[in-house]
């Protein structure tokens, strides 16, 4: 898949039941714009989340992924290249081409 101009490929996985919100597919490679169009800042995880909601979230129950304030629903872990996003600045964490981001829900049954 040839990348669109001014975008970068990001690998995004949805696990722990979240895949049901994204076309029942746990593994995605998306083309993320290099810059957040709203303020031209470099793409970070916060921008990735809003991009996913706008373009990839194919489920009416969006609150399983984000709350109305746009923040991720508590109970979802984010791993950036395997590291807990709390170690990487959470939404502020800048993304680079080829980064691997995993969203995993802890809420689903045990």
């Amino acid at each position, binding site marked *: 898949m040839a990348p669109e101009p001014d975008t970068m490929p990001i690998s995004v996985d949805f696990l722990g039941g979240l895949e049901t919100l994204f076309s029942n597919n746990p593994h995605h490679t998306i083309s993320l714009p290099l810059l957040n169009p709203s303020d031209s800042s470099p793409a970070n995880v916060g921008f990735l989340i809003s991009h996913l909601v706008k373009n990839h979230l194919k489920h009416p129950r969006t609150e399983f992924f984000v709350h109305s304030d746009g923040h991720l629903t508590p109970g979802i872990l984010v791993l950036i290249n*395997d590291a807990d996003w709390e*170690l990487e600045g959470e939404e502020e964490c800048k993304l680079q081409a080829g980064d691997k981001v995993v969203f995993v829900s*802890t*809420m689903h*049954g*045990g």
Partner: protein
Amino acid sequence: MAPSLCAICKIGRAYIKRPKNHAKLCKECFIRVFEDEIHHTITSSKLFYPGEKVAIGASGGKDSTVLASVLKTLNERHGYGLDLVLLSIDEGITGYRDDSLKTVMNNAVQYDMPLKIVGYKELYDWTMDEVVQTIGKKGNCTYCGVFRRQALDRGAKMLGIKHVVTGHNADDVAETVMMNLLRADLSRLSRSTSIVTGDDRSEVKRSKPLKYSYEKEIVLYAFHKKLEYFSTECIYSPEAFRGSARSLIKQLEKVRPSAILDIVRSGEDMARLVPGESPSSCACKGQKVTSAAPAEDDIGGCGSTNGRTPGGEMAAMDKQLRENEEYAELEVDVAKAISKPKQAEKDTEKVLPIRSGTGPSKGGRQVLGQCKRCGYMSSQEICQACTLLEGLNKNRPQIQI
């Protein structure tokens, strides 16, 4: 951000931030410390004895998968001498268990453990699909939970096993503590916070070795160890009240990660104030590890959760039980407890008077007997499962296609 180094080995790159103490750890040290803490819980609570046969309540979900993996590891590393068996329940929900039972079967091969699957149909002559056809989706989690509760014990009995371990984690316990508080049902606190339920008089003892393990760490353990587990919401969706308690816990965790273990500890401390109950705790805090609570009352939640959420949705249950005249006596008890004069409450300093809230549980210790119908251990004449079955069987003809 520059990557931090592991707080334990000081060499590896930190990948995990522990919710309980914010420690930043590398993958290897995290896995080791996660296992070591469960080992500590097991030894300090004296959960097992050498040579004991133990059934792991296995749903194919993350908690029981991690429990099986950790117990296998610890059993080998520390020479517990346990004979471990996987025990799965098939509720009879079309499509729902197919994948999760497949996962359990794979686990059985991977962990080299025998697997026993017990069906609701075989135990109760009702599948959950049939239950839902009869009563609708509302309240069906109560049925599922009550049936599951006995199913694990009966499955264990069939295998000649007297100890069932389940994957209940700290978040589950915290959630149940919150629910009991919100329902003003302190008498349930002991059961929901004990690491062991059932005692010498019970045929089957239950315990939760992951009681102090954060759900977040269970998920991370499974992720970093690349354990295969199955996750789906039960298609008969969980009750709203439990869902609210769950999101509340998760929101608290976001602001203050230690809140989860703090709620568990608070639940233990409050349970100690309830007359006639002796909650268990980590034995290094000096508490006795016993609980006289009959196992049957520790109702599990929705089918997706391996019965991991004791407490149950009692509203639907109440309604059902009220219709049953066998519970007339209990109704009187509840009324009496509620109309207790205010003054008595003021006079009591150490022992809190316990109101029964809206649940059918009575304050304090319950008398253990046997169900007159099925012989299963119960604090009532007719156990919860038989009570529910009676209602179901009455309604069966209407719905048969």
